[in-house]
């Protein structure tokens, strides 16, 4: 069972995070301040850390930079009430792996935590092919095959499919898709992401194929073989 360390000074939020991670099969421990959090993160081998940006005693930024300075590579999901892009950049530059703004939907947090866990366990570097069922992606040649048949994908569609396939079986939210595929952090508002998914879906889930991209109501999308 993967273990998560929750460093969060607000008890209600902490309880929510612990419950949500628990529901997704993680064993979560809670620490209420930065100094203790750093000590626990250094001492015990956690698989993932959720870290509040503003903490009493020691700031979230200081905690993560200290961890990285001591070569602790545990993925860190920074959580903050500060939504400004500058804050996000600062958090990521200090060594955070992802940044989530408060208040957040718990499933968004769980989705991001799982993406981080997966990426940490199976580093992207060196990988040349991704395969999910009969869908294949060649990262070197930049082509995609479904059931042996080549697919014609636009560059954006290729990146979108790569993101979904890397996180196959994992729900990804529209916000996460926008951040990872397009690299922007604002709220695109409209249903643009849905339109992009729809086009990709028409290309890979053609007639007679088992649909791979599924919509998760109220949350996002998942690329997974039918159960």
């Amino acid at each position, binding site marked *: 069972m993967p273990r998560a360390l929750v460093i969060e000074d607000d008890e209600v939020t902490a309880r929510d995070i612990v419950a949500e991670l628990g529901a997704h099969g993680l064993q979560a421990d809670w620490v209420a301040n930065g100094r203790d959090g750093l000590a626990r993160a250094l001492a015990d081998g956690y698989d993932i850390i959720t870290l509040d940006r503003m903490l009493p005693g020691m700031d979230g930024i200081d905690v993560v930079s200290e961890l990285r300075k001591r070569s602790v590579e545990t993925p860190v999901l920074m959580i903050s009430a500060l939504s400004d*892009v*500058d804050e996000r*950049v600062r958090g990521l530059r200090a060594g955070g792996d992802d940044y989530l703004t408060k*208040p957040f*939907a*718990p499933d968004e947090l769980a989705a991001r935590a799982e993406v981080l866990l997966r990426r940490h366990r199976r580093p992207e570097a060196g990988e040349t092919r991704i395969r999910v069922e009969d869908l294949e992606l060649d990262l070197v040649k930049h082509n995609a095959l479904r059931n042996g048949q080549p697919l014609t994908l636009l560059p954006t569609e290729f990146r979108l499919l790569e993101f979904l396939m890397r996180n196959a079986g994992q729900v990804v939210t529209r916000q996460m898709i926008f951040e990872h595929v397009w690299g922007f952090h604002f*709220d695109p*508002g*409209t249903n643009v992401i849905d339109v992009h998914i729809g086009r990709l879906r028409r290309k890979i889930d053609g007639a007679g194929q088992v649909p791979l991209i599924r919509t998760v109501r109220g949350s996002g999308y998942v690329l997974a073989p039918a159960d």
Partner: protein
Amino acid sequence: MSLRPLTDAWRSATSRLILIYGALFAIWCVILLGVVQWESSRYLTNVVDGMLAARLHYLERTDSRRLTDTVDAASAIDATGFMAAGLFDAQGRRLAGNVGKIPKGLEEDGVVRAVTAEVEDHPGESGRRARGLASTLPGGQRLVVVKESATIDGLGAIIRRGALWGLSLTLIPGLLGGILIARRPARRVRQIQLAMEPIREGDLSVRLPVSGAGDEVDLLAGTVNTTLGEIERLLGEVKGVTDNIAHDLRTPLTRMRTRLYRVQQQIEGTPEAEQLEAAVEEIDTVLARFRALLRVSELEDRQRSACFENMDLGTVLKNVHDFYAPLAEDRHQLFELDVGKLPPLRGDPQLMFEAFANLVGNAIKFTPNGGAIRMVALTDPTGDARIDIADTGPGIPVGERDAVFRRFYRGDETRAKPGCGLGLAIVSAIVRLHGYSLAVGGNDEGAVFSVTCPAA
């Protein structure tokens, strides 16, 4: 309202005051000198009249047999025409003296009159203005004494000349000095005008310059500064309250959404689940609005050029086009991008993407299916980059064109569409942060949003 340069010194309040003072001073001088002249000529006239009366009195008392000789003697002495005398018979024929004839209008009633006299031996001076007095002697002869009033007139001329010199010697340097003096306040007012410029554009943190002299301009600037501070504080409070409400409501709303979402997951597939899904969507809409509202505040609070770089706006626009092209295509809209040569620009590509994404998203939303959206970027004649986003939607009525950039503003045409009226407020904040300008134009066949970016 546009700034009017105060180069025209005559228009300044100080110059006007100086002119008014100058005119009043001149009028006062003229009145004063007029009174002096009038008083002194009256005095001199009195003196002359007294002398005339004395001379006449003396001649009247002279023995009548010696009168002719006396008058001739007196005239002979009067080489300078100081005071002339004449003796005439009842018919007005001259018997003695150097007065040619009885001046017209001179009555023998003992009253001194202003007359035109002819004095012999002084032909050049005959027919000049004079004072005259006449009387009838017991024998029917008439006795006339005349004194020229040239002295009195000369005095008036001296006073008038003096006034002219005095006025020009005081008024000309006074006016010149006044203009010089007026230039200082004009310069200060100009400084204040320049300082007001960013304030008019919404930057309430700017204060007017205070020279420290403690004069009226300083007092005024001080008052304006205090008022600005107060407005800034109040606006900050209003914005703070709005932001706080949005901020504080987000947490309970998010929790509510989570609960509803969990229940919906548990009863997936039932009609109730659909109801719950609709409720979750409603909450998502509200949360999106709060996010947008806080985003506007965040952008407005941001310091300019925090993370500006040399950006390739063409690439940003191409990315926006790529991002929205599928949406336009789904709606059978023609979405064209035309990027010409652009000057070098400094900015934040992330924010510019956000701004143009909002503009393009709006254009697609308000253009009917089958319409067209066109995004054109070019260098305008002044060397700035201009990006026009034109659509074939209903357009924006002229009266609403300023209002569309305000928070929560929604035009009559747009109320039926989904949205929160914050997109353009975000665009406006981003554009302002960059020092770019945003304008809306077009007609009832479509709106045109233009962003002008000064070259770096």
